[in-house]
């Protein structure tokens, strides 16, 4: 059930389940550069793709905000975009081409508008189509919201190659019958997941397998081995791809593997640079390209891609991504090179001092997941009157499993973590974690749920 549409970036067919596009603010302003802009709630519909593509191809600015955004939020973004478009028209005589602005949550929680140029999107879309062999027979299941940059691969790239996009309503991902129906009725050949949507799929499949899927892309976080094992069983004929990136640079690293490797590997490596991308590791030994690393090294990842954002839109101006004269983007992620593989160590801003010892909250959550006793884990430090306590909230590993007892989890984790990194207070969650706009566990909701008990 749905409507078909043609986008003007390429040609494609789009099957939609529900929803319509609401043009929250569509200001038309004729400037010297012929600028126009539109701010849309990213309700998944073919008309949205058409309108956005048409506006972008005319050199306009399109902002996609979460489908459930409030009026005031949409107004606020529209103000930013309108101000930006107006100041662009005055300052820049040259045609920059269209800009897709996606809000991403900064480390302070306040959203930043990332400005993606159409030329870069076009290059990325061409890479994606070539690497995954997108064509008219491709059926992509779009699980994530369209205000997420991941949709550039699972939706825009597929449409541009003439394929179809089966839309899953992001508000109904917990509805196992609905999600299983999407898989069963449309036989997707391509699916991209983030850890939370992978868990939703595994939950919905309930043991069934889908042979139609030939490529599964995992991105946006670390999936537990339990989930990966289930995924390998669900998609027995698929190749699996671990993809690393960020909204600012889109994707830059890919590791392609078999279902067996996806299930068996303890931690998935980050992979090798995507064609045209340059990835560097900034360690004590200096900044080296990951293609040229020999000795073991550890440090921050620095990246340059053919599809980098122009910058952030703030106060009507484009604030550049990087310092002037330096076009390498710091990912603020720590990685290591060992045994010929690049491994993710955790967000640099998730490293903090706990009672004098350096700990990384990502590592602690990974240690919890690796015990295979939990599904999702969320760690944080709280300070009460000078005493720091490490908290860990966790969920069951799967729908048929019980939430493990605190004792069992502590014993299992103590085999993997030194005493100073062990959580002091545990919070079992019988339901899945509340998620934030980025599909990641929403820490403040988790905390308030704990407090209300």
């Amino acid at each position, binding site marked *: 059930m749905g409507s078909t549409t043609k986008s003007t970036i390429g040609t494609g067919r789009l099957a939609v389940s529900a929803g319509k596009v609401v043009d929250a603010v569509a200001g038309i302003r004729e400037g010297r550069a012929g600028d126009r802009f539109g701010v849309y709630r990213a309700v998944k519909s073919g008309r949205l793709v058409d309108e956005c593509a048409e506006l972008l191809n005319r050199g306009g600015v399109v902002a996609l905000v979460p489908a459930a955004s409030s009026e005031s939020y949409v107004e606020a973004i529209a103000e930013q975009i309108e101000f930006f478009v107006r100041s662009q028209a005055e300052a820049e005589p040259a045609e920059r081409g269209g800009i897709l602005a996606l809000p991403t949550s900064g480390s302070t929680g306040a959203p930043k508008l990332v400005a993606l140029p159409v030329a870069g999107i076009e290059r990325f879309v061409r890479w994606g189509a070539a690497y995954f062999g997108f064509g008219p027979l491709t059926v992509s299941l779009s699980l994530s919201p369209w205000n997420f940059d991941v949709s550039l691969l699972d939706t825009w790239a597929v449409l541009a190659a003439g394929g179809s996009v089966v839309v899953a309503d992001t508000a109904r991902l917990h509805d196992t019958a609905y999600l299983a129906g999407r898989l069963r009725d449309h036989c997707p050949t391509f699916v991209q997941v983030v850890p939370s949507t992978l868990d939703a799929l595994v939950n919905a499949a309930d043991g069934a397998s889908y042979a139609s899927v030939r490529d599964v892309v995992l991105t946006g976080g670390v999936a537990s081995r339990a989930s990966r094992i289930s995924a390998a069983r669900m998609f027995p004929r698929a190749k699996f791809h671990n993809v690393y990136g960020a909204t600012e640079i889109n994707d830059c690293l890919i590791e392609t593997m078999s279902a067996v490797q996806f299930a068996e590997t303890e931690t998935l490596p980050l992979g090798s640079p995507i064609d045209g991308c340059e990835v560097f590791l900034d360690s004590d030994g200096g900044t080296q390209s990951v293609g040229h690393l020999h000795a073991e090294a550890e440090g921050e990842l620095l990246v340059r891609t053919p599809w980098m954002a122009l910058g952030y839109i703030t106060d009507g101006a484009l604030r550049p991504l990087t310092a002037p004269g330096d076009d390498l983007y710091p990912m603020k992620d720590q990685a290591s090179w060992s045994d010929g593989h690049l491994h993710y160590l955790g967000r640099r801003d998730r490293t903090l*001092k706990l*009672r*004098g010892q350096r700990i990384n909250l990502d590592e602690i959550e990974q240690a919890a997941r690796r015990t295979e006793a939990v599904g999702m884990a969320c760690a944080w430090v709280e*300070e*009460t*009157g*000078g*005493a720091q306590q490490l908290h860990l909230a966790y969920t069951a590993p799967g729908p048929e499993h019980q939430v493990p007892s605190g004792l069992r989890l502590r014993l299992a984790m103590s085999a993997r973590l*030194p*005493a100073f990194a062990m959580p002091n207070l545990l919070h079992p969650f019988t339901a899945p974690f509340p998620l934030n706009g980025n599909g990641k566990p929403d820490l403040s909701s988790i905390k308030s749920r704990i407090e209300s008990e």
Partner: protein
Amino acid sequence: MTTITEDRWSGFIKELSKPAHESERTQPGDFAAGLWEAASDSGVFATFAEAGTHATGMKAAISRMRELGRTSPDRGLTFSAVTQLASTIYCLRAFADKALCDRYLPGAESGTAIGGHAITEPDAGSDVMNMTSTATLCGEHYVLTGAKCFITNAPVAATLIVYAKTVEDGVDKGISAFLVETNWPGVDTSKTMETAGLRTSPIGEVTFDNVHVPVTQRVGHSGAGLLILDQVMKREILLAFAGNIGEMDQLVARSVHYVNNRKQFGTSIGSNQLVANRIAETQIAIELGAALLDSVADRLDGFDDVTVAIAAAKIFISEANVDSVVNAMRVHGGNGYLDSSPLGGYLLDAVPGAIYSGSNDLLRTKIATMLGIHS
């Protein structure tokens, strides 16, 4: 209690009270070695040996530090003496085994071997757990590496009790205490720190570069460093602020003498109620502070946690000391402000009391936490 040392001690104090010892503002950085020797000869450092480290011994030591504060012209020396007693002598007697005590107590208690303790680091002051100095076990010795600062007596010390993270078989055992001799290879005490006050109490930085510390030099159990430090600091606070009480006694004596002899408008200024009140305020603080110190000393043998009481005593006395110096200066008027008056020196020496042995701001927060106030 009249012991041989008691006679020697009172003799020393009597000597110290003689006007001949009245000195003006002391020269920067001069450790009064002569005065230290005289103090050592009085037997003050043997107080714990005679009276034990429990309530009786503590009260005797408190009493002596107060007397020293009251009679000595050199407040820096009092501070160094407190460090000798708490950091090294009390620590060894309470926590070290017999072999270590036999080896180091004679020197420490005769004052011939000056000691101190190394706790603070550039990035770990109040946040003591943040220290990075590490002692790694290698067979029968530890290898100690790190850097410490704000160590009282370091430039003249023969021994230092060093608190460092302990690593044994790759496992972090927590913080332990080690007795390190400053003449061992790898120990560098050459860097001194110039401070605004307490200038005759030498203070400095120390670096440890792969120092070999025999296992036998560890004080107490591996990983017991935090517990030992907690107890040592309690004694250091009691003694240091007993010294402060004595200094306040000195201020009262000076001020009473001054206001009785200084005449204005045909009468002594002491007959002005407001002037007299300033001195009375200091005496009130002395009564309260001294009583609290004695009460805590008694409670140390008991079963309850004296953390709040000690914090209260420290906060109260250190702040009252500064207020008392300011009051004394006001009582002395312009004469108190002259460079030839020792009161300026008193002030600079009193100010750090709110900083060392735990910052008053953090101690207040600790009291609030222990009362159950959520932050």
